[in-house]
Every structure is written in structure tokens, then in C-alpha cells.
């Protein structure tokens, strides 16, 4: 199908499956591997678009379900789409809206036609079809849009998983057929198939035939065993075409980003860094700090010494402790740091791949974050072993 992006691999790791790419989208370049922060309702949790630009954020997410409720499809179209609405001139990605239906709403029911749900506004029964999702996403106008998929929990087993996989393929066809702006918006397919290797293979085989501009690995990060998770990711990057960007949905913990990049994933999104900030947690290369804790009341160090974000340059942990969860500024400062951390981590990953020292970067990263061999998560050890990396003791 038509594509509104170009994708060029600039460097490959000589040990792992990692790669650095230049993705060019209608609203500018994106360096991959990339972490995309989530601005659910057309705003990234208290940060201005200027602050995001200064953090060198090249792409963020908006959620179709939320924007569909408010300001609503008609209005966002009248106002010229989501970029204009929020004054964000860089790239946007929207999801299909289906995941929120299933995760947020109690009364969601999935039929061949689409996802049936009870409107949170007036309680009436509504239906989100692949056609409706495309129409909404065409109105919002993001640079990358996602197909509506049949999402089942990654803990589900049995025939429902296979049904969902086949239905996702049928819905992809309906999305392709109803997508009105393929010349400015890139539709990504979402690989389903649960934790079943054969179903995943089948799904990839069918979806690759549709030749969408990029592919997402869906149906993971739902509480499944991490040791299974990485195997599905690795299988997907092996089977998907090397010429297309691969997006692993809902991944955002630092160690997951590092491991999945080694497995060949190019794009990620997660609400974790911004959500955890609102609870007063700052992310660092040595783990998370809960700045609400009184142990930081007299800690006059910055959150991270070598971090060059505004928060770390100007304020101490003690100052942020005073504000965490009490003043919105406390939340803004931690959010700023956390987004900065994620983007900085991705930049270090890219630099390491470009310099072809990604393996030693990974070894250092794990040692700093977990302190040593005894604390390494076994799934990560296994995943890295599969791409020829042994962690340091």
C-alpha cells in the first residue's frame, strides 16, 4: 500500500539485531530506536510543546479514544487536526482507540463488526468499527495511525486467541480500504497471535502481504511472563521485513527498551515515565527514586548528577520533595526529568549502535541499574544471550 514515510537504516550492530534508522515522516525526521512519550488528550502532562522541542522530542502519541470524546471528531476536524490544535509541529502517532475500549470500559463487547461499548457520556451503546477508527484518525491527522485490532489479554489462551488474530487481519483489510489519507498518514498493521508462535507466524505472513508502511507488535505488555514476551518480540523482528520500522507497543521501562532494541525493535511508547512522575517518582540510571519519601527531605543533590535537563540543572531532590504531589510544579519538574531520561537513554542507545559498542553499553547499563549479576532479571539475561551478549558479573 501507499506510504508517506521513508525509512533508512544508518547503522547496524555487528553483534545484536539492533539498528539505527532515520525515519522521515510528514512532520519531520525521527531517529530510531525512538521512545514516544504519550500525550493522551492532546497534551503531554503539563509540559509545553516548547519544552518538548527543547528535549528534542521528535514524535509523541495522542489517544484516539480520548480525542474522539473531547474535543470530538467534528471539532478537531474544524480546528484543523491535532497538530494545529495543540500547536505541535513535529510528528504524532495515534492508536486505534480499541485498546482503551477494552481496558477502560467495562461493557466492551467484540463482534465481527467492531468493538461495542457503552458511551461514557450518556450510557448508550456505541460501536467502534475499523472504518470508524480510520475516519477518526484521519480527522485527527497523525503521521502514523494504527489499525483497529482485536485485542485479547496476553494471558488468554485457547481458540479466542486464534479468532482475534484472524479477525485482526480482516480488520486490517477494512482499515486499508477505508483509509482516506494514505499520502499523508502512515497506517501500521498490528501483529496479534498472543503467546503462540505459530499464530504469530501466521499473522506476520498475512500482514506482510498487505505491505503497510510499518508494523507493530501488539498484544504484549499485558502481564505475560517476560521470558515469553521477549521470544515473541524476537520472533517478530526475525520474520518482519527488514525494510520497515517495527514498533513494540506499550513498552517503556529502561531495561525493556535496551533489550528490545537489541532484538531489533525501532519504536516504543509507554505512559510509565509521565504517570510515575505524577506519583512523585523520578527515573534514574540506578533505578527509580520516590521523591515523596522523607529520606529526600534533606538531599541537596540533583535527581541525577550528569543529567542536563532543566530540573537537574536548577533544583535539588529536597526542593522537589517539598513539591512532589503537592504543587503542580513538582509534577512538572519530575515529568520533565523523566521524559528527558527516556529520550537521553534512546540517544545513548543510538550512539552506541553507531559506534558499534552497543554490547559494552548494554553491559554497563545493566550493571549500573541492577548493581550486579545477582539482580539481573533472568528474562533479560536470556534475551541478551540470544543476541550474543553475556552480562557482566
Amino acid at each position, binding site marked *: 500500500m501507499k506510504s508517506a514515510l521513508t525509512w533508512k537504516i544508518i547503522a547496524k550492530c555487528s553483534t545484536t539485531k539492533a539498528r539505527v534508522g532515520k525515519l522521515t515522516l510528514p512532520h519531520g525526521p525521527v531517529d530510531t530506536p525512538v521512545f514516544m512519550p504519550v500525550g493522551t*488528550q492532546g497534551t503531554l502532562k503539563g509540559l*509545553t510543546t516548547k519544552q518538548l522541542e527543547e528535549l528534542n522530542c521528535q514524535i509523541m502519541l495522542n489517544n484516539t479514544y480520548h480525542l474522539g470524546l*473531547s474535543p470530538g471528531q467534528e471539532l478537531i476536524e474544524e*480546528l484543523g487536526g491535532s497538530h494545529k490544535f495543540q*500547536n505541535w509541529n513535529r510528528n504524532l502517532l495515534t492508536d486505534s482507540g480499541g485498546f482503551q475500549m477494552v481496558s477502560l470500559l467495562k461493557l466492551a463487547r467484540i463482534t465481527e463488526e467492531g468493538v461495542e461499548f457503552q458511551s461514557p457520556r450518556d450510557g448508550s451503546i456505541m460501536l467502534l468499527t475499523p472504518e470508524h477508527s480510520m475516519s477518526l484518525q484521519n480527522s485527527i491527522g497523525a503521521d502514523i495511525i494504527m489499525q483497529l485490532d482485536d485485542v485479547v489479554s496476553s494471558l488468554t489462551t485457547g481458540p479466542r486467541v486464534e479468532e482475534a488474530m484472524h479477525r485482526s487481519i480482516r480488520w486490517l483489510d477494512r482499515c486499508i480500504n477505508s483509509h482516506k489519507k494514505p499520502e499523508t498518514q502512515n497506517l501500521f498493521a498490528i501483529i496479534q497471535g498472543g503467546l503462540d508462535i505459530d499464530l504469530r507466524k501466521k499473522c506476520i505472513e498475512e500482514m506482510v502481504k498487505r505491505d503497510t508502511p510499518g508494523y507493530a507488535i501488539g498484544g504484549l505488555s499485558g502481564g505475560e511472563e517476560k521470558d515469553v514476551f521477549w521470544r515473541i518480540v524476537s520472533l517478530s523482528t526475525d520474520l518482519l521485513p527488514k525494510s520497515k520500522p517495527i514498533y513494540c507497543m506499550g513498552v517503556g521501562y529502561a531495561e525493556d527498551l535496551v533489550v528490545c532494541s537489541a532484538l531489533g525493535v525501532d519504536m516504543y511508547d509507554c505512559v510509565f515515565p509521565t504517570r510515575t512522575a505524577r506519583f512523585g517518582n523520578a527515573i534514574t540510571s540506578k533505578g527509580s527514586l520516590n521523591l515523596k519519601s522523607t529520606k529526600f527531605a534533606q538531599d541537596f543533590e540533583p535527581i541525577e548528577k550528569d543529567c542536563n535537563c532543566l530540573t537537574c540543572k536548577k533544583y535539588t531532590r529536597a526542593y522537589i520533595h517539598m*513539591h512532589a504531589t503537592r504543587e*503542580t510544579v513538582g*509534577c512538572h519538574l519530575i515529568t520533565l526529568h523523566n521524559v528527558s531520561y527516556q529520550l537521553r537513554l534512546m540517544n545513548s542507545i543510538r550512539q552506541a549502535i553507531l559506534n558499534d559498542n552497543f554490547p559494552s553499553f548494554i553491559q554497563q547499563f545493566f550493571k549500573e541499574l541492577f548493581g550486579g549479576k545477582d539482580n539481573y532479571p533472568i528474562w533479560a539475561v536470556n534475551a541478551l544471550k540470544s543476541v550474543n551478549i553475556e552480562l557482566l558479573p
Partner: protein
Amino acid sequence: MSLSFNLLKTSEKSLRLGRLTLIKNQEQNILLDTPNCLAYTSRGCVPHLTPDNLQAIPLIDAVSVTLEHFIDIQPPPSTQFPGGIHKFLNFEGYLVFFDVRDSGKLKSVSYNTDKYVSIYTCHGVRQITSDSYIKYMNIYKPDIFASLADKITDETPSLKRIKKSVDRTLKWLDNALSNEGIQVFGVLTGHNNQEERIRSAQETAKRNVAGFVLNGNFLENTSRERINMLKSSLDHLPSTKPRLAYGLGTPEDIILGVSEGIDLFDTAYSVKMTDAGHAFIFSLDLKNDLDSSKQQQQTINLWDTNFRNDVQPLLIGCQCYSCQNHTRAYIHHLLNAHEMLATVLLMSHNLYHYTNFFKTIRESINQNTFFQKAEQFFKVYGEQKMEETKNSTIIYN
């Protein structure tokens, strides 16, 4: 370090243009042209604004910080910080004014005694003595602090209570003045009693204070009534020292306060309006063709659904970050979605607008057009009572 106040211009009435000069060291001095405002802070930050967003409001040169917000934990961790309060709060380029109680949320907590004032912290009521206050100030090293005051928060205090408040406040002022190194503003009391207000003003004026603090909270309802009450104090102050007043926040309050010779105000009102979802649109530079028979609005309420598809900025022509980048429709959406960027953008605009309002006041005094403009202002806006703001606290996701 030195602090001086010069009157650049005075008129036959009490109207005045002044300049507060703070020389911190050889490299740094801060000039504060008056009339002006001190940015209100909560727990040492200007509400909703990270430092880059605060810096985008170029006319803010001074902040007012409140001890009440810092001493919930004992000993206060901020007192252990080695670099002083400017550095701790990242206010190194600003004049920092300290007071004991929160001027925006002044409320009765418990009684005061000859020894201490009761204050409210997020961990409950604490007592502060004149000595402990001075001790904190010597650690924090603000540029100016207001002396400890026995502020009356009862609605109908007895004369005995008012007299006691004047006596205690003077006694604590003497104690503060015996401490050297930091400039002290004397706090005027006397509540609603004319004679006691005069006594407080005269006694404070005799002392070696750098300026005066007046409190317009708890006084009458309308701007004129409040200013008249303060006037009985102002008439007995020397013209050569700056006067700061709390509780005068609306544009009417400011215009009337400036007319009576008040030099400094705080910005608690702009925070209150921001939290209520309002944006300032009032102006002192009114065009003559405005229909003065129709009362104009001073603010717009962004919760109003009429703004849902309004692609204008909050105020056409405004140079603030919000107006240069965002629409009313977007801010209306952010409020409805309970998104924190709503108050970031509103606070940015409101403070920008508020500080610019002071600038136009200074310019009009300089050009001898202040009274003419003030008259036009009251004609166009009427004497609005403080608008009932929607008292909904924004709940963030």
C-alpha cells in the same frame, strides 16, 4: 548589600513613581520600578510555572515567599541547605521578600500570644516566635523580610484585641530591627479602628524600617472601602519609604491603591483567577471608541463552552507564550480534560498580563495621564465587585 528607594516622580495627590534598588554585590543589582508587584509563591514556587516558563514573563523581578510553607518538618530541611534561599528556590536573579503567613490564604488558625504567632502548615498548626523567625531569616538570607505581626483574623475584634495586636507587632518589630544584615519592612496593624491604625503607623514610622506592609484582607468589601481603611495608615507614613499592600488584587484595587500611594502589591489574585479557569483581558489603555454604556468584561472564563471552537488567543495582540502559541479552544479543552497544561498556560498569560498592567500604570504616571485613564477605566468596567469565581478545584488526571 544595600537597598534604597527613590521617588522618581510625585504628584499633588499621593500618586508616585518610584524605584527600589537592590545592590547585591558588584556584579548584581536588581531594579524594581514601582508601582509593581511581587510574584506570589506557594511552597517557594510561582504556582504552575517551571523556571523557564517563569522567565518567559520578563517583567517579574521580585517574589514573595512565605515561611508558613517551609516549616512543616522540624528542623526545616531548607534551613540545612548551605546556599541560602535564593539558590534553594532557584530565585537567584530575583528580589526575594519573606513574610510569615500566606497573603493569599490568610486564615484563622489558632490564637496568638505575647510570645508567638500561630501559623498553618500542611502538617498542622505551628507556633513561631519573634526570635525563631529572625533565626530563620538569618539562615535563609532573603533580601527583605516583613516583621512578625499579630494579624487579627477575627471578624469583629474588640478594641482591647486591636490594641494588643498593635503593641505586640511593635515589640516584635523592635526585636527584628535589632538584628542586622537584612532589610526589614514594618507591618502596620490596627484593623478597622481608625485611632489604632494611626498609632500603629506613627509608631512604625518612627523606627528604622526599610518599608511598610499593609494588609487589605479582612477589611471592607469594595475596593474603595478597603482603600479608605488603609488610607488612615498611609496618611501617617513618610513618603520616602515603599509601601506594600496585601489583599488588593483586582484592577480596581490596584488603581485605587496606586492613587493613594501604595507602591507594591502581590499576585495572589492572578493565581486565584487562574485556578478558577479565568484569563485576564482588562486594560488601562482603553480606546475612546469603546462603548462605555455597556459594561466590559475584565476576564474571560475558559470553562465557558462558547470557547469550544474559538481559535483566537486568550487576548488578541498579547505577546505572552500562551497567546503566541495557543487558542481559547485548546485551553477550554485542557480544562475540560483536567489537564495540567491548562493552568500552566493561564498562569503564564495572567502573570504576563498583570505585570504589564503595572507597566502601563507606571507609563501613565510618567506621562501624567494616570487619573484620566483611571477615570475611563471605571467608566468602562464599572466598579465591579470581585467576580464570583467558580469555586471548583481542578482535579488533575
